[in-house]
């Protein structure tokens, strides 16, 4: 199976590069070309192949494919790509695809470069299905929030161009404000739901393993919990009271940057995700 996995490992970045090329072309010709956009189907094919690659990798190594740096980044690439594909399918607009497919390509290139075929030491929890579900949900939740923040950034940029009456390439190429707002809301909602499931499963795994709540005081978990609650409150406030799109955009961006900044600080300080042993 290893030759097949090695081939797919090389092929996936090339495939995503091809998909990215179609999205770039679509972005710069949008509104002028009414034909079928094949990039979407290429993206579905790439994501399907990517999913298959990770499953095969999991079968061949006997653990969930997130135990190594390469596997984790590849899972991240897949989650961003899949969440974006869902957005595109839901809103029938491929004009923002190049940003996300570009991100997927970068992650997958990194994963392919870091690929390690001889894994000596795999943590036992990487074989636990509940822990596996925790990681998958959490990663997909992060991907949703990442998409949400990027849509918020696009909203802010387009809104500022409209306000300043300087209508450049952003005005011409990005989807309308209300659509960006909907895309951002959908990504936030999916992010909050998936991250919520991921965190709940993570808490359950930790509690089962140690029978105390002590591991839940780990800074990374505390930050993730606070971020999740903040996003949830933000969603409820926006739903109940209403918020201007531009304020929601700024809040979403600031929240995401704070969240990611805090995570990076904790991870670099503790030099690991979270170890309870």
């Amino acid at each position: 199976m290893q030759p097949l996995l090695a081939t797919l490992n090389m092929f996936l970045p090339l495939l995503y590069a091809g998909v990215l090329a179609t999205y770039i072309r679509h972005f710069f010709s949008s509104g002028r070309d009414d034909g079928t956009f094949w990039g979407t189907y290429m993206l579905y094919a790439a994501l399907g192949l990517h999913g298959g690659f990770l499953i095969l990798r999991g079968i061949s190594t006997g653990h969930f494919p997130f135990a190594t740096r390469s596997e984790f980044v590849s899972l991240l690439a897949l989650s961003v790509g899949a969440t974006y594909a869902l957005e595109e399918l839901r809103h029938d607009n491929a004009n923002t695809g190049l940003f996300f497919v570009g991100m997927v390509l970068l992650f997958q290139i990194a994963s392919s470069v870091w690929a390690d075929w001889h894994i000596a030491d795999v943590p036992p929890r990487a074989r636990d299905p509940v822990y596996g579900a925790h990681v998958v949900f959490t990663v997909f939740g992060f991907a949703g929030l990442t998409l949400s923040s990027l849509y918020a950034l696009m909203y802010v940029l387009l809104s500022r161009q409209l306000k300043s009456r300087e209508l450049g390439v952003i005005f011409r190429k990005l989807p309308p404000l209300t659509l960006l707002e909907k895309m951002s809301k959908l990504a936030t909602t999916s992010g909050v739901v998936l991250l919520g499931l991921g965190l709940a499963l993570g808490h359950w795994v930790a509690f089962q393993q140690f029978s105390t709540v002590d591991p839940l005081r780990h800074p990374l978990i505390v930050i993730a919990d606070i971020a999740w609650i903040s996003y949830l409150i933000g969603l409820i406030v926006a739903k109940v009271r209403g918020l201007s799109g531009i304020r929601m955009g700024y809040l979403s961006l600031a929240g995401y940057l704070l969240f990611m900044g805090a995570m990076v600080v904790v991870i670099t300080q503790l030099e690991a995700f979270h170890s309870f042993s």
Partner: protein
Amino acid sequence: MADGPTLELYSFSHKNTSLETRDELAFSDEQVRRFLPEARERLGGEWAVLSTCNRSEFYGANVDHDETWDVLADLIGELKNVPEDELTDPDAMDGSEAAHHLFRVAASLESVALGENEILGQVKHAHGMVLESEGHVSVLDQLFQYAVRAGKEVRTETALCEGAVSISSVAVDLAEKIFGNFRNREITLVGAGETAETAAEHFDDAGADHFTVVNRSRDAGEALADRFDGEYRSLDELGETLVDADVVLVATGAQEPLITPSMLRRAITERRHNSIFLIDVSNPRGITPEAGDLPSAYLYNMDDLESVVEDNLETRRREVPRAESIVDHFVEQWERWMQQRRVTPTISTLARYFEDVRQRELSRHEGEHKGELSESEISRLEAFSKGLVKKLLHDPITNLRSAVENNQLSPEDLELVWSLYNLREFEERSDDR
């Protein structure tokens, strides 16, 4: 004949004709249907009419007549009742120049409003009328096919037709950039004059279906509201109307602003901070400029809209060289197709000439050796002569075709082939037989 197909064009447009004459020359579909067979009857060849509000153009292919325009002018005069003295000076073009002109027209490079989109549909329509007409129309069919492809490619590959270039369409564009489309969007018109009506027409065309007219005069307001199946509200209800409005166009002559920041702030809070697009085309201003500083409000006045129009026009002007190079590419393709059309009769005449020589020589030989040749020997001679002719023709035909492919074949080259073998005399002899 070695000359091959020809193309000629007589054009009346905004460049050489007054608006009145252009109006008189505008052809309805029915008139085109009458014109095409009549022109073919009197002048021969294939004919097409491209008639828009800014141009009436007459395309003829394979017309073999010394005074084409005079005959055409008579025919147009009969059909349109246009005085003959107004039909004396069309822009006349032929060959590649005529094709180049049509491709520029389809690409909207010849339009009054550079990059306008309607012309491509009009060229397609003219093409459809050509195809509907009776008789052989292969040259004009091909010409219009290239024209439509050139027009499409210019629209796909360049930004020549991007961005609105009128105040009302810019307003619609901006609103679409905020709301996407106008389904279930509320368009509020403050004022019921001509400007408000024109803007309402544009929003209506863009798919808007909810209109509210706010106006001081009830009668005028209701009349405009009725036209768009909308609702009338008095000026006192403006504040409440803003709560539900998505697009607000203010076009009044009021001396004081009708929409102030405090009024808008209240409305925005009530509408849960949903975006609102405000267009102020009043003079003096009907919306206090500070209203545009509110986070959910996007305010454009007349100067802003004019500046967007100018920017879009400038963008279109910058795209002209790219559009022209696409047109040039299609002219080259057209010229190559015409060359192929020219060389095909030459090749077929040449093949018939060689076959004629072969059969005559074979008959002569059989006559000279009557009774001496067996059936099988005659068959072998037949096969041999056919093979020989095929071999002799192979290189000239291949070279003629590749010269066309490489755009290296001049009319003189073809003429040389016809002279070398006296192909004209051969054709005349064949016709006599």
